[in-house]
């Protein structure tokens, strides 16, 4: 199985403060990988390095086959990104957003046009083609944002808390979209605060104080920590944390 993420001893320091402390792990193609941790544990910083937007202080690795230190521009071209805080331009219409991001990732007009129609049909969005994104309900925005993030069929899609505040039914529909993407070979790297979503992942890692303190399938983690749920696993680990909260 091909490894789409391979990192070793990845570290990020801000002055005296070590945000990410020598983390190492691999992610395989088509995997759904859950990246968990308390606020301030270093998740966002680590993700920024993987996405090629932040330079590591030490360590090495490859993402989508490209070196994270020397080839970070190539990484950006081959990944998709979606965060809770921002993903789409609110004052642009649905189809305009799709075209914009398609264009940014180098798709031709013809391809964009065809794929847009397909996408809108699949999401049952055809009536909203010309709606400004700011008028869409949150759940729909998230679904659209995810579709836009994988529009150019990237090898990996990084998602930072994509389902925050979304209602339960929509959340599950969203995860079903994630499953479909994974079935098509897109690797999914996702962070979340919903512990039940941790169960939807193939493997899960938990960051504490900048280090990875646990990494395995949810079932094995539950067994190892003698816990009834991922929630308990998380709490046992987070309790040991010295940083922040």
């Amino acid at each position, binding site marked *: 199985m091909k490894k789409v993420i391979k990192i070793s001893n990845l570290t990020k320091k801000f002055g005296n403060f070590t945000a990410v402390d020598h983390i190492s792990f691999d992610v395989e193609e088509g995997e759904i990988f859950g990246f968990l941790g308390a606020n301030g544990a270093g998740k966002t910083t680590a993700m920024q390095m993987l996405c090629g937007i932040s330079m590591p202080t030490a360590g090495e690795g490859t993402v989508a086959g490209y070196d994270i230190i020397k080839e970070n521009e190539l990484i950006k071209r081959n990944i998709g990104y979606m965060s809770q805080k921002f993903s789409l331009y609110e004052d642009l219409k649905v189809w305009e957003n799709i075209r914009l991001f398609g264009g*940014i990732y180098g798709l031709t007009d013809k391809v964009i046009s065809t794929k847009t129609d397909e996408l809108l049909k699949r999401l049952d969005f055809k009536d909203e083609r010309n709606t400004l994104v700011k008028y869409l309900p949150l759940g729909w925005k998230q679904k659209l944002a995810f579709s836009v993030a994988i529009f150019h069929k990237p090898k990996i899609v990084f998602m930072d808390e994509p389902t925050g505040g979304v209602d339960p039914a929509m959340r599950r529909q969203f995860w079903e979209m994630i499953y479909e993407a994974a079935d098509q070979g897109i690797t999914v790297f996702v962070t979340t605060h919903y512990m039940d979503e941790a169960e939807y992942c193939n493997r899960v890692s938990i960051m504490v104080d900048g280090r990875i303190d646990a990494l395995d399938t949810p079932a094995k983690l539950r067994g190892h920590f003698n816990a009834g749920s991922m929630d308990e696993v998380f709490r046992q680990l987070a309790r040991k944390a010295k940083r922040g909260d």
Partner: protein
Amino acid sequence: MKQFIAFVHKEFYHIFRDNRTLLVILGMPVVEILLFGFAINMEVQDIRVAVYDPTPDTFTNGIAERIQQNAYFNYLGKVYSMEEMGELMRKGKLDLAVVFQQNFQEDLVHSGDAAVQLLSNSSDPNRGSIAVTYATAIIAGYQREQTGLMQMPFQILTENRMIYNPLMKSSYMFVPGIMGLVLMIICTIMTSVSIVREKERGTMEVLLASPLKQGTMIFAKTIPYMVISFIDFIIILLLSYFVLDVPVNGNLLLFFLIAIIYIALTLSYGLTVSTLVDKQVNAVIVSAITAMVPVLMLSGMIFPIDNMPMVLQALSTIVPARWFIEAVRKVMIQGQGLMMVWKEILILIGMILFLLVVTIINTKKRLE
């Protein structure tokens, strides 16, 4: 390349869908060109002139008549004493005084020369020197005319004096203007931003939900800026006096009073702006544009008000800086007293009250 075009496209959308930015980008140049076009009229016209002629004769009457007929001059008539002349000049009603010596004609015929004094109001040095030039030309023209009819050569001597600005320093004109401009910008922008910042950050919500009265908050916010603005004012004053040699002729306390009133006005304007906008960015834009442009163009700081078309002159009456600059010029450069500036002071106070009323009406007890 594709990315480039896609991004350019996106930016155009952002601009066209944001009405406020559009107004500024497209509307501003139009307004500025129009204002500039009409306000810049460096030609000096409508020069108010009065004549003091202790012993009227053919010559003096002749010269007076020529001046009266000249299109550039606004002939106010004859005055009957130098006190009267001085009074007119002090009240700002006179630009040029033409003073004939006693027994003008007699001296001219018997000694070959006689003198006429040209006193120009040089608070606006440009205007002052041009007024003198015109007048001198008229007198020289009269002299040429008459030379043919006289048996003996003669000469009319003109003596020029610049009142209020003997060295013709343009800084005298600018300094009050700069004061007006700087104080307006600082106070207005600073207060409006400070209040709108609370709205934007969300802290306003928490404050509203507390027993804090809006009035208390607003008043508390203006105090630090009042102190800082006054310090700024003192700095400008000191620099003008010591570095630019601008005289401070009048009563210093009166000057401070005018400054404090003006500062209070600019702060009130900042408050008014803060009730109208919701984002700090907009607060800065609205403050800067509505404060800066009128002050630069219409306050008499750079372009003389008298030269503007009537519409703009009328507009300039609602620009607070105009009254501030007039008051400051009178007190600081001309050394006038309270009696001369009470009108300006009253107008400024009136404007403050108006702005405060608008602010109070607009201040919301709730979020929307």
